[in-house]
């Protein structure tokens, strides 16, 4: 266990045409913005970097690349290797409302070529964004159409890439980002194994481990024999907890970055549920059968297991907890919320 653990830096490019909504989603997911406040964001100049530390040894290195033509031109020429080398994931955002879809596709194709050249093993997540602007009953068909057209221009990435319809106004954003994070976490399997053991010990029906700032799920364990019919429950819980964090921040006057609860408990018909802090950057949500003694032993056991989960984290230099999401200087405008 005492081998020197190294932080895994994962470079993630966030690209797409100007106004597609890249910085908006970054602000909502990583900087505690509420959806209606993203209007305050200006266009991104060049690239804004942010570093986000997740459970374990994942350090997300996010490049929010301003999408105005001049900047893109520059990424593709002078900065080509600088931008496109050692990329783990490219998140490409398409604006569903765009009136020049063909131009967007062309722009996309240019970027794909550069990526294939410099980082052929990268994975692409394509987000078809602002879906809230489309009537619910038309969404699936429209998505399918776009997916076809985009795939056709995706060269070697077409097989492995994933598509998500997203909107900052609902949980769809969390669904997409949860998948992205899960793909990037290097030791997800180890974490999952430990969670499984814990779930056995405390007789949990479900455990969800999530990152405290973003409320994005890191991983989960389900033990209940009966299948839970709510397949979207994980992104739903992310979204509701995030909204709630903002609400608490607003009401208490504590900055959203640190308006964390020590515990939330719900005891209701047929189940008990609580959320408690697990490690520096994560909370654990626990669903158990409705019995006071299970509740009490579960809390105790989680308390005892904290140390072993903490050992999965890379010993980080002491920093204030809120600082874990601070970006480099250029993200200054995002940290206001």
């Amino acid at each position, binding site marked *: 266990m005492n081998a020197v653990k190294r932080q895994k830096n994962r470079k993630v490019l966030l690209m797409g045409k100007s106004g597609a909504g890249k910085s908006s989603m970054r602000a909502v997911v990583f900087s505690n913005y509420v959806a209606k406040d993203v209007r305050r964001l200006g266009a991104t100049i060049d690239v804004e970097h942010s570093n986000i530390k997740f459970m374990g040894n994942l350090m997300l290195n996010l490049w929010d690349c301003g999408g105005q033509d001049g900047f893109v031109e520059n990424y593709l020429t002078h900065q080509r290797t600088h931008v496109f080398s050692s990329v783990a994931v490219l998140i490409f955002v398409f604006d569903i409302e765009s009136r020049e879809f063909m131009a967007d596709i062309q722009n996309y194709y240019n970027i794909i070529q550069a990526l294939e050249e410099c980082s052929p093993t990268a994975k692409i997540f394509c987000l078809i964004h602002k879906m809230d602007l489309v009537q619910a009953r038309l969404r699936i068909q429209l998505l399918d159409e776009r997916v076809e057209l985009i795939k056709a221009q995706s060269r070697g990435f077409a097989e492995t890439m994933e598509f998500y319809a997203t909107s900052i106004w609902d949980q769809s954003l969390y669904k997409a980002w949860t998948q992205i994070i899960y793909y990037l976490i290097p030791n997800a399997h180890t974490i999952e194994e430990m969670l499984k053991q814990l779930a056995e010990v405390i007789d949990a029906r479900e455990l969800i481990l999530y990152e405290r700032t973003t409320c994005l799920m890191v991983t989960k364990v389900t033990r209940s024999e009966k299948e*839970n019919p709510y397949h979207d429950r994980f992104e739903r819980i992310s979204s509701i907890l995030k909204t709630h964090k903002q609400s608490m921040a607003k009401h208490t006057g504590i900055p959203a970055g640190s308006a964390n609860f020590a515990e939330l*408990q719900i*005891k209701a018909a*047929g189940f008990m549920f609580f959320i408690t802090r697990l490690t520096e950057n994560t909370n654990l949500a626990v669903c158990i059968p409705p019995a006071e003694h299970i509740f009490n032993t579960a809390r105790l056991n989680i308390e005892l297991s904290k140390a072993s989960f903490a050992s999965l984290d890379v010993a980080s230099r002491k920093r204030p907890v809120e600082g874990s999401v601070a970006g480099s200087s250029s993200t200054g405008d995002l940290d206001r919320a």
Partner: protein
Amino acid sequence: MTLDDADTPSPAPRFHTGKLPNSKTQDGKPRLLLMGQRRSGKSSISNVVFHKLPPSETLYLETTTKIKKESMHSFMDFQVWDLPGQFDYLDSAFDSAEIFSEIGALVWVIDAQDEYLEAITKLNATILKLQSTFPSINVEVFVHKVDGLSDDYRSDTYRDIVQRVQDELSDAGVENAPVSFYQTSIYDHSIFEAFSKVIQKLIPELPTLEALLNALCANCRIEKAYLFDIVSKIYIATDTSPTDIGSYEICSDYIDVIIDITEIYGKIPDPNEEFTNGAEQIGAKEVGNGPAESLITLEKKGNYLYLREVHQYLTLICILGDDSPTDRKGLIDYNVSVFEHALTQVFPR
């Protein structure tokens, strides 16, 4: 049975609370009418408040062509009628007795982002007509869609509308008509707060409930306590300390968390229990352990929010405030059970 209006010793109470003097049958099912110009937002309000339609989806609502009636079953049954804006209900072609009798409140929706002079003219004509036929109907004016207005412009618009309505009424010789005004929007909590206040006026037991909540707050130093109908997110009473929208918001957001989590995990069938399909939620009959209960403890503030189901349809939510050490929970539990007991005498289950 008559009810003394506790707070207003004035000879004629401005608002009737609960008793429905217009009621033919006295069956106690108050009706709320939603009226106003076309596209003022009536159907949006009805759908957002009573069907949980996401506000942005109201963009796709079509104009209403016939009266849409919703029944709400809760601690008190009431009906909400959404009236198409395109008709003139004062026209003799309409049976005004049919529409206006038995109503608890007339909610008049004015689009604050649009020209409102005509809306005010119609509103006043309606009030004057009601004054002669059904004088004690509460008229609740929603100055609506204020989300689109800057803060300054919003309060100017609001004041202008209030002024115009009152001036015209007093020119017509009507003073002290039971008319109240609210600033509302479906994009925030204001529409729920306004509806809460509209409905509270129809609850005869309100003064009793307020007194009980006051006692609870005093006994365990609770900052603010609300009695919610959790499904509609309407609160039917709160203690009489000053309210602000922020306190409502935090409770309402808390309810969202509880409802969502309960919906997700509450339905996994217990092998020994029979669950019926459909809306088996926190408000429904309990199985297994006792009434639903929840507590949020903040890292920096100690206990902060407390929730407990106290009646089939009613849930108590308390903002414990900045000074609530975790060890005070026992005291709160005790006082809440006293409150719960008193409540069963007001509303037998």
